[in-house]
């Protein structure tokens, strides 16, 4: 045995020993400041809670997970923070990001460095499908949203009203950035597949201050069902101006954004928003048999933050993070290819996570089981009504 091999052996032994007691670092990349901070922080809480749960159960391969936060306040900083997390902090994987444009920017850095990136909350179609090896997405997408809106209309709402879906006149309105445009595009495409009648499709800028012309247009064309994909201000504006113009369509189905938030209901009034539908990430008023573990999540959330979750973002991020971390724990180790192999082997069936949907990645590394849920505002509460196995309430017909 040469001196050299003894030295090598000692070094190896030391590194193994320190490895056994070391922490494993994971990046937590969200917008923690700036305009997106509210829901960025809410999303990050889901990841924090998943990590707490894994650490309480003994960590990953005996190592404790330590989250290193990166503030993705804008696209440039998302890139900078991804670099810092990889090179300076030496994270084994990055989790994030809430905003689609931030993950699209930051994942280019991680992909080049060969570090796995797990997107838990951004919905834009372009996030996956760019041929990246190390980028995975657990949450449902804009396409899932468009499909869920149309399916809920054709399979639940129309039958409940005693109408044939083909007889309904559908009007699609959307804020004209990439978010609204892509969801509206999927709605139109899926409505066509299902033989539905779209009579109006109109975009508008999200910073619109008057929607009365659009309301008159919908009213004039006799639109029965309005599908709106929007942020908060334009949601409030549309619901108020439709109400004030005396326009009462058979159904209004909102796509996420403003439609899921309590302040929107407060702004327009519970009587105005009553009966309005919404398609979004899994919310909390849902059948617990379909979402096992949601109580554990809610208890942990209340214990750690002393309040109720402010939106479904934390739950969606928690479910994705927990599933991925558990898969990594069952895998071979923390090398990028070992992580990729372990998550690609995932096969979690529907109805067995706290968000309801299962996890299995398709060829583009998108979770093919992810889907959006349908809700309805009833007496000031947002209750899950679709799909039927997740529902806690019957659809209520507005007069």
């Amino acid at each position, binding site marked *: 045995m040469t001196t050299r091999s003894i030295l090598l052996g000692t070094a190896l032994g030391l590194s193994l020993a320190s490895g056994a007691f070391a922490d494993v670092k994971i990046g937590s990349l969200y917008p923690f400041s*700036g*305009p*997106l*901070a*509210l*829901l960025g922080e809410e999303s990050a809480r889901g990841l924090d809670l998943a990590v707490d749960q894994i650490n309480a159960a003994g960590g990953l391969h005996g190592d404790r997970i330590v989250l290193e936060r990166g503030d993705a306040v804008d696209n440039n900083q998302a890139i900078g923070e991804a670099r810092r997390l990889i090179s300076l902090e030496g994270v084994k994987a990055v989790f994030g990001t809430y905003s689609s444009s931030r993950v699209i920017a930051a994942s280019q850095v991680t992909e080049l460095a060969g570090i796995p990136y797990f997107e838990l909350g951004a919905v834009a179609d372009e996030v996956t499908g760019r041929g990246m090896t190390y980028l995975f997405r657990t949450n449902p997408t804009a396409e899932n949203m468009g499909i869920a809106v149309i399916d809920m209309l054709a399979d639940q709402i129309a039958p409940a009203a005693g109408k044939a879906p083909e007889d309904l006149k559908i009007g699609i*309105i959307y804020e*004209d950035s990439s978010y609204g445009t892509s969801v509206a595009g999927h709605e139109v495409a899926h409505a066509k597949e299902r033989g539905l009648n779209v009579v109006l499709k*109109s*975009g*508008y*800028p999200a*910073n*619109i*201050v*008057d*929607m*009365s*012309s*659009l309301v*008159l*247009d919908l009213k*004039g064309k006799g639109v029965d069902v309005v599908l709106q994909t929007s942020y*908060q*201000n334009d949601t*409030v*504006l549309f619901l*108020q101006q439709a109400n*004030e*113009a*005396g326009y009462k369509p058979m159904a209004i189905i909102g796509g996420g954004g403003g439609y899921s*938030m309590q*302040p*929107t209901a*407060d*702004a327009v009034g519970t009587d105005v928003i009553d009966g309005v539908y919404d398609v979004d990430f899994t919310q909390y008023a849902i059948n617990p048999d379909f979402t096992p573990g949601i109580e554990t999540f809610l208890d942990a959330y209340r214990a750690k933050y002393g309040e109720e979750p402010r939106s479904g973002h934390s739950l969606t991020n928690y479910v994705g993070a927990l599933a991925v971390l558990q898969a990594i724990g069952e895998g071979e180790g923390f090398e990028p290819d070992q992580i990729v192999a372990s998550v690609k082997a995932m096969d979690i069936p529907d109805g067995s996570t706290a968000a309801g949907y299962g996890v299995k990645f398709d060829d583009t590394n998108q979770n093919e089981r992810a889907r959006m849920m349908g809700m309805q505002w009833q007496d000031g509460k947002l209750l899950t009504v679709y799909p039927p196995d997740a529902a806690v309430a019957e659809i209520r017909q507005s007069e």
Partner: protein
Amino acid sequence: MTTFLQILLNGLMLGGLFAIVSIGLTLIFGIIKVVNFAHGEFLMGGMFITWLITTQMGLHPYAAVIVVVPVLFVMGALTQRLLIQPLMSARDDHIQIFATVGLSTALINLALLIFGADIANTPPHGLRAPLEFGELRLLTGQVMIFGAAIVLVIGLELFLKYTQTGRAIRAVAQNRGAAELMGINVNHIYVLTFGLGAACVGLAAVLIAPLYPTSSNIGTYFVLTAFVVVVLGGLGSIPGAFLGALIIGEVDALSGYYIGSDLREAVVFGLFLLILILRPSGLFGARQNLSHLS
């Protein structure tokens, strides 16, 4: 026919809304020749104060005018005194533009820090109640805005024409150097004018808050249109800005219905460019000398 009349009415009300937001801006622009990019954030600040007073003290939103207008006057005056005035002597006037852009960003982020990213709802206290004329509908609050805009335009015109201070303000606008030689304290006039302009937007904030949810970036929704209105009206002409606002409101409403919501901005700005090409000094603008000294 009813639909057409309703659209015309909606356009008129929208015009009143744009007018009340733009009047303060045109005053500052016409007299001090400073492009105030923080104008929208003054509006936002005023709306948040209105919201606070209405929700915390349970008062009618219009009662907040007693607080909001003076607070905005002071904000405007301080902006002129502490930010713009030191830059007046800068070699390049554009420095002031960057200063107001900086102020705008700072105010938006300050509001985010204080109020968070969520919307704040000022209780409408009946201002959202519709007034019905046959089949036509208007909101009480919209009519109040329209009325207030007319009163404000007439009031400011009278003030500028018939008071000593008003005449001094116009003198400074016409020729800063000559006004200074006549013994007018130009810096005082500037501080006063900036304060007045900000006070006008304070009034707008009180009237708008019950109708629109307040958020940190609400100012950016209005400010671009306000600039269009000001330029259309002829840079500093208050009746011109009012007329420009009505034109923009009508064009916005009509194109939104007859052409499509996604194209309304294209129509509004296309028309704006056309008017600028045909009448470069705006609808009411005389050939103005925009230099500070000559």
